[in-house]
């Protein structure tokens, strides 16, 4: 009956003479039991220091909210998960004659200036989504072309164009003039990715170069690890990591600091789980260090990675070649585009990976996808020579008025300190 042997023996030595002592005994017993009882069953008082810590400075919080939120009262209950109507038909279809049906190229990009750039054969066209007007940016000769990649610079004024002759040209989209030519590759440049003033280029020569477009000696880094053409290249939103996918079925994650060194850089992670070329890459906007990648025909999987540890968090078999991936900026959703046999776009809920919608229409594999700056529309380009616009991520009214999950400041904080 008694709790501990030690206690037992102590108490037994106490003479039990009268009722009084018995009460004493019971009290002692109770005390002993209490003392050795589980700490959490103990009674406790909760103390707080009277003088409280200061609140965060005014400007601090408001800054990030201004960028991303829409008049949300703090702590206001988020509207219940509304089922929003996702139009099954594209809101617009444009002709894209001569668009190359080559899986390894990246011929579509939507700039922050709301202008969509698309490379059709040897010409790059700019479609102004605001006005609906089309303009020809540039055309290359038979020998130099075709154009193998296009990518808008973050400033929305300049655009980089990769060519079949291994050249990378930098154009001013307003004056329609070429500003620079970046020579470094020895084979066609199929992938481009910007990180501030740094342009990363991936080529069929299996190498990735980092160029600082502001300086004369523009090559600031070289990453040679892929064994075959580099077809996917994406910088993380924080600008700390670069993901590259190749025809060698490998996915590499590179650290920004390492990639800035002049010599040959070493990678952070080498991920070899895909069974086919890795072209589709997309960094999650609401969770830092989360990368989604898609595999080609023999693989058909979308895999999610923690780029801090290199672990594969999830893998989903989509039953079709994955050509491109786009995360929603407004909801926890991912859009993937596919090839044979349905040539569809699939909208997934994350992280459950439940299919929310399947958009068909294209009659050939949907090779490229680009998202509007407001994050509501996705443009898809396919080998069927059409460009379709899908209102897949909602409209400004149906979207929840909450701040975007990842704020620039927070992701910078996280990536600086995570070990």
């Amino acid at each position, binding site marked *: 009956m008694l709790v501990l042997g030690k206690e037992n023996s102590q108490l037994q030595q106490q003479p039990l003479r009268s009722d009084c002592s018995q009460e004493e005994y019971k009290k002692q017993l109770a005390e002993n039991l209490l003392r050795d009882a589980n700490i959490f069953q103990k009674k406790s008082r909760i103390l707080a220091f009277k003088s409280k810590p200061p609140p965060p400075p005014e400007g601090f919080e408001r800054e990030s909210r201004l960028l991303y939120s829409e008049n949300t009262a*703090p702590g206001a209950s988020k509207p219940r998960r509304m089922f929003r109507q996702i139009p099954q038909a594209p809101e617009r279809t444009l002709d894209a004659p001569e668009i190359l049906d080559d899986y390894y190229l990246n011929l579509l990009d939507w700039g922050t200036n709301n202008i969509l750039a698309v490379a059709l054969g040897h010409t790059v066209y700019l479609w102004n989504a605001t006005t609906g007007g089309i303009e020809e940016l540039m055309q290359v000769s038979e020998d130099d072309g075709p154009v193998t990649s296009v990518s808008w610079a973050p400033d929305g004024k300049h655009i980089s164009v990769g060519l079949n002759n291994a050249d990378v040209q930098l154009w001013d989209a307003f004056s329609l003039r070429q500003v620079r030519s970046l020579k470094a590759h020895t084979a066609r440049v199929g992938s481009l990715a910007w990180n501030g003033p740094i342009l990363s280029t991936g080529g069929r020569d299996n190498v990735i170069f980092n160029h600082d477009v502001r300086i004369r000696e523009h090559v600031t880094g070289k990453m040679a690890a892929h064994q075959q053409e580099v077809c996917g290249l994406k910088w993380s939103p924080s600008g700390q990591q670069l993901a590259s996918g190749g025809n060698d079925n490998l996915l590499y994650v590179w650290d920004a600091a390492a990639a800035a060194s002049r010599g040959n850089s070493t990678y952070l992670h080498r991920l070899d789980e895909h069974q086919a070329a890795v072209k589709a890459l997309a960094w999650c906007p609401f969770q830092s260090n989360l990368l989604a990648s898609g595999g080609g025909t023999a693989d058909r999987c979308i895999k999610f990675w923690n780029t801090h540890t290199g672990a594969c968090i999830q893998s989903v078999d989509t039953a079709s070649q994955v050509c491109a991936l786009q995360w929603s900026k407004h909801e926890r959703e991912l859009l993937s585009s596919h090839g044979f046999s349905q040539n569809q776009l699939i909208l997934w809920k994350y992280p459950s990976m439940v299919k929310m919608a399947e958009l068909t229409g294209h009659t050939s594999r949907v090779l490229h996808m680009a998202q509007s700056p407001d994050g509501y529309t996705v443009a898809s380009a396919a080998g069927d020579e059409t460009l379709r616009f899908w209102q897949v991520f909602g409209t400004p009214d149906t979207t929840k008025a909450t701040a975007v999950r990842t704020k620039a400041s927070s992701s910078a904080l996280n990536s600086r300190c995570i070990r």
Partner: protein
Amino acid sequence: MGTGQQAATRDVITLKGSSSIVGEFFSYAVNSILFQRGLYPSEQFDRVKKYGLTMLVSHEDKVKGYISAVTSQIADWLQTGKVQRVVMVISSLATKEVLERWNFLIETDREATETGATKEKSDKEIMQEIQAIMRQITSSVTFLPHLEESCSFELLVYTDTDLEAPTSWEESDPRLIKKAQEVKLRSLNTKIHKIDSLVAYKVDDDSNV
């Protein structure tokens, strides 16, 4: 314990020493959480080397003052063996709703408080345990929901009912989270004080499980 004084003194833990180590641990842990959860701007933090890591510590006077006043009081109280837990509460500035609770449960060795007995544990081991917890705090950002609004924090100390508290301290309610998800973190054991940590956070209504 042994005859070799030099080696022995390094590994001997006294009640006072342990209380000081734990108090200091709380101070760095709280600073780290403030930085990682983005409660204050990163410019307010300095980098210092501690526990073999680069720790971020706030240099803002009021924040620094609060943390130091509370943790030094906790270190004093730890010597009495009457501290049961330390909780860091993170709540919305505007609505006061509690969004996160970092719990540090404390068990104090009876023998040490009652008889002043010392224990043995290498500094190195203790530092490694603290290092592991700090790393976990840092990587907790990968699963903790993003704190969208301005938040304030507070430190609560659960003590025995018979602990004397100075007038600068007041009674508080536990400030619990209504619907919480908990994640247990690693523990720290100085042989005199055992600290179990866990973080509880408000379950997001529309997150998929």
